[in-house]
């Protein structure tokens, strides 16, 4: 039953990202967990409230863990509210990572909190990296300062609802995706966001000649154990905590098309 026992980590910094999201840096209290790779996730336990899957959103390489958390329910809100000094239980690393080995050009498409698991990828050495990130509104866009400082990444930001302070694009991420310059022969696309968004983006990319094999998506299902024991994260043949969340599009496509799978 030790698989169920989290390792204590302590919050060292808490950075407010948006009105409902924060980034926490966690430092091991004593023992530490093996290193995480981009795309993988941890199960974070808030004492007495519960445990939820949260992706790794940066890999500083100093043994700390970085997570960006959006408060949507009881557990995520408690984690969101955790200030420096709070001890959180962590299990992981779990799941599959983004496959970047043969990527020449990187196309990163994120919707909402979906940018969190893709953030570690932005530092990956690629010939060319394009980031298309969408959010509901300007207030929901994550990591805005950091993105502004990215020098070797082409950035396109878009929001569903613009306001007078917003001078960028308004609309869904599929629109810039249809028009940005893109070399289908050397691009690897990484998608994370709501399922319909990923489906539309993938369809656009397939239409532009990108082979399905070079599209990766990150899939979410209810997860309660992280280690293939609870059964909740099934999506067709996949146990997403083990066979996902990062999945190649050839595998994911039929699963995303089926209703209520």
């Amino acid at each position: 039953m030790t698989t169920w026992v989290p390792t204590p980590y302590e919050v060292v910094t808490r950075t407010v990202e948006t009105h409902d999201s924060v980034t926490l840096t966690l430092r091991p209290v004593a023992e530490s967990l093996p290193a995480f790779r981009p795309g993988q996730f941890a199960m974070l336990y808030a004492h007495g409230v519960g445990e939820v899957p949260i992706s790794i959103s940066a890999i500083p390489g100093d043994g700390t863990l970085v997570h960006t958390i959006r408060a949507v329910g009881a557990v995520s809100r408690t984690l969101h509210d955790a200030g420096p000094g709070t001890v959180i239980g962590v299990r992981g690393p779990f799941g599959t990572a983004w496959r970047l080995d043969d990527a020449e050009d990187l196309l990163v498409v994120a919707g909402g909190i979906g940018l969190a698991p893709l953030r570690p990828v932005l530092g990956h050495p690629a010939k060319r990296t394009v980031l298309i990130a969408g959010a509901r509104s300007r207030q929901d866009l994550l990591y805005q300062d950091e993105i502004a400082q990215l020098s070797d990444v082409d950035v396109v930001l878009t929001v569903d609802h613009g306001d007078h302070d917003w001078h960028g694009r308004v609309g869904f991420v599929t629109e810039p995706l249809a028009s940005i310059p893109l070399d289908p022969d050397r691009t690897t696309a990484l998608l994370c966001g709501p399922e319909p968004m990923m489906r539309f983006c993938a369809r656009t990319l397939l239409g532009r000649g990108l082979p399905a094999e070079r599209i990766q998506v990150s899939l979410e299902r209810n997860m309660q154990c992280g280690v293939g024991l609870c059964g909740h994260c099934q999506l067709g043949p996949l146990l997403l905590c083990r066979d996902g969340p990062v999945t190649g599009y050839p595998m994911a496509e039929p699963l995303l098309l089926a209703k209520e799978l």
Partner: protein
Amino acid sequence: MPTIAVWKFTSCDGCQLTLLDCEDELLPLTEHVHIAHFLEATSVSEPGPYDISIVEGSVTTPDETERIRWIREQSDVLVVVGACATSGGIQALRNFADVDEFRSIVYARPEHIATLGTSTAISAHVSVDHELRGCPIDKGQLLELLTALLAGRKPDLPDTSVCTDCKRRGLTCVLVAHGTPCLGPVTHAGCGALCPAVNRGCYGCFGPMNRPNVPALVPLLRRSGMGDDELHLVFRTFNADAEWT
């Protein structure tokens, strides 16, 4: 300390008694919450606002429609407990009959009695934050809800069938093995499968589960010997006004 108020509407008192039936937990609980109003238990009655209001009973009088709005305004979290508060209770049988006739059967001078034509759930009048099912509610669920509210976690109140609890308890299905009619497959879990545990079919006192398939159960009830009359009555009892279909 968070304040709790317990309110009674049209009901039998059984659900609020459940709180007093928490013999081992009652005194420790009062060290963590402050009871500001609970007519059955205390003469103290403090004005609002309240952090948590627990409401028992259904709305059956004009006065009660007013009172529930006031309570909602005064309460941060509103919890409704029991079949009366969640679905109108057994007194909602009047919703299917003529109240004037009911009134005159019971009272010689019905004009003195001010009642509405219907008995309705609290949620028909105001928004509700949590509900505990059952006629009466289950003590374990009540404690689960209170401790969850105090700890800020989501209470664990599954909305699946009684069967799931029945099987976890290791009971033998009375419908399959004895041919006893049982509403377990369509009834909301929470009691811990009390009736099958005494070789009795569930009679639905926790009301319908989330998305019950009553049309699929009816032929099975018939097969186990229920006639039209009984079938009609069995869904028209403690949760008559709930959405069984």
